[in-house]
């Protein structure tokens, strides 16, 4: 019988571990057969490039989700960091040219917002869903103030070059993403942060009973997620060349979807960064593949929906049971 801590909002037992991987392979093979050029080296790079930023976001989100919480604020964070970086490096609006420092400051803005999330959740006891929903909204408002109807263009060529460039034919962003993923993996499996996050997700009050500093690690998770979100925002604007409040448009849903599809349970305590990475790549492959096989734009969301649904079905069908509790 299931232990009690499996219950609670949005909690459900974890996916069949190999489900997502299989789904990913099936998708690749399918698209590859439908359109041989899909398998081309160039397209692999494109997919890597495409999934880079979502992957970075997903890694951050994973730790929050592992703790059984959720971070809806990443779009807001991305907007803020995007404008901050655009206004701190050489740009069309402010006279500043801080270069790398500017980038670091922009990334720190995310840390700040993450800190706010964490404090609102732990100190004020607001449920993460609402806390981060609110912070999301507030942050995007702040970004609008910064933007003020004059999106700053980024003239800092090194930053632009990095955003668009490749090293050894691998897109720079993809490299960053891989590094972040590696970092995430180490954090999850070899540090207290990761293990305690698991523990908190497994049963928060039990973790408290054992005397773990639960709140500290919750804040940490939100900060980490904020950090990576702002990193994503910075990279995104380095790529399109201006500070834009819509730089993270739709990323929140995408990231959560990726995490879920990858098999990290929204209930917390199950899954991990690798799973989320797989989920992200799945979504990237879908998006890319659909353009390849020329599915009309109108239907893309539908196809995405169907794939998410069938992927989850495929992954969890065998785990159905009369007493299984699904929210």
């Amino acid at each position, binding site marked *: 019988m299931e232990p009690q801590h499996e219950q609670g909002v*949005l909690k459900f037992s974890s996916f069949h571990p190999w489900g997502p991987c299989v789904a990913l392979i099936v998708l690749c093979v399918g698209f590859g057969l439908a359109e041989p050029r899909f398998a081309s080296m160039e397209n692999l790079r494109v997919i890597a490039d495409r999934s880079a930023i979502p992957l970075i976001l997903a890694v951050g989100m994973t730790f929050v989700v592992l703790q059984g919480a959720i971070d809806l604020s990443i779009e807001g964070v991305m907007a803020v960091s995007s404008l901050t970086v655009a206004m701190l490096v050489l740009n069309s609006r402010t006279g500043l040219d801080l270069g790398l420092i500017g980038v670091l400051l922009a990334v720190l803005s995310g840390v700040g917002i993450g800190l706010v999330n964490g404090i609102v959740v732990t100190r004020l006891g607001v449920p993460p869903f609402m806390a981060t929903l609110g912070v999301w909204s507030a942050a995007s408002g702040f970004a609008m103030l910064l933007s003020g109807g004059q999106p700053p263009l980024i003239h800092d060529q090194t930053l632009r070059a990095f955003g668009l460039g490749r090293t050894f034919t691998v897109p720079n962003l993809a490299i960053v993403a891989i590094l972040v993923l590696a970092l995430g993996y180490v954090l999850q499996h070899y540090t207290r942060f990761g293990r305690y996050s698991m523990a908190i997700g497994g049963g928060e009050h039990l973790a408290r009973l054992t005397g773990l500093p639960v709140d500290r690690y919750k804040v940490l998770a939100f900060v980490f997620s904020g950090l990576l979100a702002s990193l994503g925002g910075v990279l995104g604007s380095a790529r399109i060349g201006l500070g834009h409040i819509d730089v993270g448009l739709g990323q929140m849903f995408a990231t959560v979807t990726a995490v879920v599809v990858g098999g990290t349970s929204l209930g917390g305590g199950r899954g991990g960064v690798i799973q989320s990475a797989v989920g992200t790549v799945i979504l990237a492959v879908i998006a890319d593949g659909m353009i390849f096989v020329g599915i009309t734009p*109108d239907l893309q*969301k539908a196809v*995405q929906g169907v794939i998410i649904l069938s992927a989850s079905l495929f992954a969890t069908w065998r785990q159905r049971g009369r*007493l299984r509790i699904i929210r």
Partner: protein
Amino acid sequence: MTFKDDRSQPRRKPYTLVRPYVPLAVLLALLSSVGAIQHTFVSPYNLSVLADESSVILLLATAQTVVILLGGIDLSMAALTALASVLIALTLPSMKVGSVISVLALTTLLGAFQGYIHARAQLPSVVVTLAGLGIWSSLALTIAHTTIPVSAGFSAIGWLKGSSFGVPHSFAFAAAALAVLAGSLRWLPLGRYVYAIGLNPRAALLSGIRVGRVKTLAFALTGLFSGLAGMAMVARTGSGNPTIADSLLLPSIAAVLIGGTKMSGGVGGLGCTVIGALSITILRVGIAATGLDPAYEPIAYGVLIVTAALATDRSWDPLQK
């Protein structure tokens, strides 16, 4: 570890007494603060305008409340609303009232379908309705690439537009729908099942409650209300549009939460959802009325959500950690 000691801490007591009234307080505070800056904002006329504006969000939030009480969530409502608006706008000229009825029937079925998948395949409602969100919205987009004006037969829904005794019909309609639902939550066995499932699905199951059936029913409800919302939309804009309601999803959920219903299910109710919906609407319109920089609206929005949660969502509950 039992939670007895925790919950019976005396200092919590007084707070738990005022808790139910907090959403109302938030609403009034909001209204008065906007009214202070913009006096005419609290004029009867404007209040009725507000009520009218809130009607669609209210419809969405009402059904959403039931699903959230079950411990789930429905992300597909807005998309379904858009689909409904398109279908109604398309079929009104030919089928008149028949179109409304058949579209409502359809959306109800689609909702029930999602519920069935969720219950039968035991997929989390987030996943199922996320997929639904994608499917319904692109379905709407495929059916109608753009705005479909209602060329004829508008009378079938036109009655939603007017207002009597200063009460806009759309709002009265939404409120009535909510009242009916609230009543059945209170007086029908179904209502009690909903709360039981939200609080402890396993015990509910082992008490012989047909959980799957209840869930399917709840999602059928969201389907139906999405249809109604679509109808209200068409009545308001005189046309249907495939992206008409996208931006209403989060506000409607926020309305439920601000109303004091807990994400974790089983705690809360429809009473406060009205208040939540009104608060959200004031925010959407109020800031503009005060002539502040629009950028402050999302900020205020965020602050409100957090404060509301702060006020309502700290009630203690034995089955939640």
